[in-house]
């Protein structure tokens, strides 16, 4: 007879953590939010009707709305303007859906069929169609009205904010993740080794960290940009290469106090190798503080990139990032608040989700939570 209350197999640390994480509603919701935002960042710009670099000169700094541009009251004046340019006269234009048609009245000369070009070039209209009468003096002109939607408004150059925010999500998440992963791997390996081995090796390793730390971040970035030219990859590398130093110091500090704990002494007494103790005992116990620090690191990397953008060294226009959008928005916050609010809320949402996910991870990795 088997005892049904006992689990058939024991659960590993990670299975256990996963089970606990799934029960944490805030963490699951944050993971979903992050996944959705990541998908928006990856696929959003492809699906958007606007490109992040397209400039609509007629729609500079328009406020967010669900209404289509051109607005109903702007269509007819715009059409009149084009009519005047094309030197055409006509009766009252008729708007049906998105088609605008007008009966042209006779002038002194026959109507040149090439007048349609004026309407092709206009940003308001497209697909002009001219049906001339036999004598070429009168006819009907039909054009389509180009309806543009700027749900989140446009920026100072007349570019769609929604598309730019989606591109910003893509770039910022990429910078945050890549730089943090780089910092995480180097920092944990370096700090744990230095803290655990101690003595002269610790001294040398932390001295190297001190030296690198004392070279200010901006200096490093400016030099990298001067030597290798401006590119996104250099920004990833520069941010990752400066952020692991913090991680190494924190991990070393934790390791220093961990290595005097009984379970490490027990492992040493049982003859475990140093490498084994590091990977099986020290590093898993470091995860709590490290995970919390990573949830601070991703936003920090995103913000560092925005600092670079503020100084004019970051992502270059027309490419953009959330940080760059926010710094542009901050300059225009008195007249065009939506330019700040859209990207700032998006960034806040990403960072909130990261934080709650990090907290959830920390709680679920903590063996004392069982």
């Amino acid at each position, binding site marked *: 007879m088997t005892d049904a209350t006992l689990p058939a197999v024991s659960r590993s640390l990670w299975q256990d953590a996963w089970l606990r994480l799934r029960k944490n509603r805030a963490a699951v919701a944050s993971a979903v939010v992050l996944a959705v935002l990541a998908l928006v960042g990856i696929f959003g710009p492809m699906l958007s009707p606007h490109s992040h670099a397209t400039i609509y000169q007629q729609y500079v700094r328009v406020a967010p709305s669900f209404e289509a541009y051109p607005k109903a009251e702007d269509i007819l004046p715009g059409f009149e303007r084009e009519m005047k340019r094309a030197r055409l006269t006509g009766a009252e234009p008729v708007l049906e859906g998105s088609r605008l048609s007008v009966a042209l009245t006779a002038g002194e000369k026959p109507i040149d069929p090439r007048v349609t070009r004026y309407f092709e070039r206009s940003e308001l209209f497209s697909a002009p169609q001219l049906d001339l009468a036999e004598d070429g003096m009168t006819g009907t002109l039909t054009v389509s009205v180009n309806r543009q939607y700027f749900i989140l408004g446009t920026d100072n150059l007349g570019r769609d904010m929604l598309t730019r925010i989606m591109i910003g999500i893509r770039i910022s998440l990429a910078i945050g993740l890549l730089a943090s992963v780089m910092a995480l791997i180097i920092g944990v390996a370096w700090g744990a080794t230095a803290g655990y081995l101690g003595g002269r090796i610790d001294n040398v390793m932390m001295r190297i960290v001190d030296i690198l730390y*004392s*070279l200010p971040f901006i200096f490093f970035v400016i030099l990298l940009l001067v030597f290798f030219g401006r590119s996104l990859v250099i920004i990833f590398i520069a941010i990752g290469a400066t952020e692991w130093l913090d991680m190494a110091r924190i991990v070393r500090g*934790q390791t220093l106090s961990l290595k005097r704990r009984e379970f490490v002494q027990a492992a040493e007494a049982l003859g475990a190798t140093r490498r084994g103790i590091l990977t099986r005992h020290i590093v898993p116990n470091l995860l709590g503080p490290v995970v919390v620090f990573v949830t601070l690191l991703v936003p920090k990397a995103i913000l560092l990139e925005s600092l670079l953008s*503020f100084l004019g060294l970051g992502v270059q226009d027309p490419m953009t990032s959330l940080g760059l959008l926010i710094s542009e928005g901050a300059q225009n916050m*008195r007249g065009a608040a939506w330019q*700040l609010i859209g990207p700032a809320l998006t960034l806040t949402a990403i960072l909130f989700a990261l934080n709650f996910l990090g907290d959830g991870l920390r709680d679920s990795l903590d063996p004392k939570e069982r």
Partner: protein
Amino acid sequence: MLSYTLRRLAGAIPTIFIIVTLTFFMIRLAPGGPFDLERPIDPLIMLNLQRAYGLDQPLWQQYLTYLGNLLQGDLGPSFARRDFTVNDLFAAGLPVSVMLGGLALGLAAVLGTFFGTIAALRQNSWLDYTIVALATFGITTPNFVVAPLLSLIFGVILGVLPAGGWSDADPRYWVLPIVTLALPQVAVIARLVRGATVEALRANHVRTARAYGLPARVVVGVHALRAALLPAVSYLGPTAAALMTGSVVVETIFGIPGIGRYFVQGALGRDYTLVMGTVVVIAIFVVVFNLLVDLAYAWLDPRVRYD
């Protein structure tokens, strides 16, 4: 402890020497020079300029000259700001930056520890969630958004504080820059302290202290807090160095005569001596504060020994 401190300070000299050497050759090998303008200068004038600043000598000789001057505390003349030596610039700017950074750091440490401990003690209550949410907000808002916002609200709309500018004597000019510098640090420290306090409250030594029947105030304020401060102290070292050597953004937006701007200006304009001077000053701050952090570690955690 004293011998440890002295040994660490002695050990810092080679560190600073390596930093100086590294930066010297890195900035010199970077393309461009301090006298490169949009319009090329007459070659003869260029030659005279370079001779006046000693740039015509071989690089190793310039390096030795610089090291010699540095040992006597002379950081050399600034290339971009004629008539000023780098020593003059720092003598004027450093006290401002150190004072602002120090006050911001103190404010951040006190508020951050306070809020972090409160949040941990009331874990998963509405108070905890509010503090975590506010802290997240503080971390997420870049200072180039906070600074104009504060200046707009308190300087322009309410009109209670100066919107910008600087005065050594009038503390009202200090408030907004200090708050801008401190806000993100309050948030980070509160999060670190909260995380560590949650762990510390479950630790054996805290349970033992409770079992002895010590009052809650002693258990939390002495036994738990000591362990909980460790990650925050690690964080504070480099942060202190960064805050006290000035912030480009805050100094630019509020118009403060600190030294934070010099670094970016110097590196972009190839003002060699200014960059080197900034690097030396920052390096000294980082070395000193990292030493303080390690000493604080030994004091907070009796298991850590330096001998």
